């Protein structure tokens, strides 16, 4: 369920972090609702959290950053992107890797098919197999096109700031 600005104004406590772990210790309590629209960026650097959609009861999560970033002063977090960037990049890389692997496999298969012709052989099996391989060439071309479409889908939506 999405919470509107009005909801937040009426029930500010709902946006208050409930946990007291060190991870959230530095997060100042949210006393005012965001002054800008939810889709707008936060430039004040005071708080970095995922505000769309806000969690109904729990704390808003500050992105977890790894390594030295985790120990950086609070100001550093203002420039840090949400954790989702990392996951999205990993997924895009995963798909890219599979697409590339598939394209290599398609080339190998095409080379294997083209390495020989069965037309010289007697027996209906040769003709049947040859026509199956011919139709596979069309299938391979179709798969290659489809892989291009998949590759386009790896363009990440949303920008880092």
């Amino acid at each position, binding site marked *: 369920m999405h919470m509107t600005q009005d909801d937040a104004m009426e029930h500010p406590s709902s946006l208050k972090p409930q946990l007291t772990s060190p991870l959230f210790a530095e997060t100042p309590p949210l006393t005012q609702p965001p002054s800008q629209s939810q889709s707008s960026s936060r430039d004040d650097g005071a708080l970095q959290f995922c505000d769309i959609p806000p969690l109904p009861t729990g704390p808003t999560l500050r992105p977890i950053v790894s390594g030295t970033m985790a120990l950086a002063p609070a100001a550093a977090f203002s420039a840090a992107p949400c*954790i989702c960037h990392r996951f999205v990049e990993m997924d895009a890389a995963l798909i890219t890797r599979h697409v590339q692997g598939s394209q290599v496999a398609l080339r190998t298969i095409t080379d294997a098919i083209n390495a020989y012709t069965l037309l010289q052989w007697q027996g209906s099996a040769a003709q049947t197999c040859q026509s199956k391989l011919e139709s596979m060439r069309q299938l391979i071309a179709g798969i290659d096109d489809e892989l291009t479409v998949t590759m386009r889908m790896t363009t990440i939506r949303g920008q880092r700031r």
Partner: protein
Amino acid sequence: MTQYVDTKIRANLTYLGDLEALRNYAAQLESASREATQIVQGWRTAPDTMRYHRNNGMCSFLTAGAPSVTPAEHATLPYDALYGQCLTHADQFTMLATTLHGVSDSLVKAYSLYSQTEQTARRVVNEILEAGIALSPTTALYGLAAVPLLTPIIGLARHGEFTPVSYTNETAWISDGLVAGFTSALTGAAISTSLGKLFTTLGKSKAKLPKNIDWEKYLDSTNLKKLDLAQVFKNLFATDESNATFHKAATLTAPLTSMVHGEGLDVYAITPHAALPKPESIAQAYANVDALTADSTSPGYATVCIQKLADANGKRSWIVTLPDSDNHLDSPCAASQTMQLMSDSSRQRLDSTAVTFVRKAMQDAGVKNGDSVVLIGASQGGLVAASLASGLKGTYSFTHVVTASAPIANHEIPGNTFVTSVEMEGDLMPNLDGAQNPVRESWLTVQGTATNEAGATDTSTPVAGTGSKLERPHGMNYQRAAWENAVQAGSPAVEEHEAHFKQATSGKLVSTMYYQGRLQ
């Protein structure tokens, strides 16, 4: 629920072209298929990995957000579409892998690409087993005792069930060695008849492999000079042990058989209720044998069907469809005849009442010396066909012999006679010869393997009239399904044999005669 049959086609197709190149091509396609299968795995698991990233709760927008309304500081991908694409690619590569594997398999099967290799490997295993049994039958019996323990495990692993037939099914690949080895051991025959002659030459009176080999004597130059070593090597791997054993056994039992069954043979024509059609194909030939033999359609006693054909020039030819054995004591085709028909002596085979009955019927029907004859027979009928084709090759012109479930590997059928055989793995009857059929251009063997639904593949052929349990695959329904399976493979060897059969039976049907016989 039904049983299925898959086949291997054992034929010599070297005359068609470079089989090695075809074998490499099939291997290359199989390798490409494996590569496609690996790609499938990647695409199948990718959505799960992405879901794990997306739903781990670190960013609620990533879980629920849509790419069209990506807010600042967040990023996403069109996940739902990507999941779909991943599965699409998995399906596409599955199709590629399946087709490539199917094409590779089809080529291997249709062109008998590994037939020679498999035959050689099986031969070596069986020769070693046979020699082991001959050298130490007692130890071999202990080994054989392990079979009942292992067979249920193998049967369950391979077919998901265990039935008494599993014993013959799972030991089919060593059955030749077992039969040849134990028959030799039981009757005291040599590992091979010819090898027996070798020991006789070397001064051993008994045609047995000696337990304590006197190498000094055997390697003595005077003795070695007596031998044609090439011949010795050839004989060492002879496959006629089983037939030699049957020869001995038939010699011993012949007087008893004559006493029980009688010696006089009365052959007479009969008119059955339904006539057999002229077989236009090998499949139809098997259907005719089925009709002649099956309990529901058989005329009772063993009956031979002789069809007279005439071509456009009036030249006559014949199709002789032979009966299987029956259970009547006064029948010339009683089951006991199998022993004589399995003998390694052509004379002994021709003297059997089953062959005598068919010869008399052929003479009565008007088959003359030099006439072209096509023989069709299953089980004991196949043995009679092979005995006629090998023993009377100078009398008639046997153009084509069609057999099913018949142990005829050691019957010397001339090379200009086409032989088309179907044998089922796990069927004891075709294993009685303890050898594999010769592989040559004019001799094609379709080796069927029965399986249940769990083991059936896309290329398996269902067997008519079968139930859910594995059973002994001796019936004509199995032989016919095996042939149908081989025809569907599109093998040039099968097509060549079909074409030859068609040509050999191309004349117009003039008359159909049926004969039965009684021993008196």
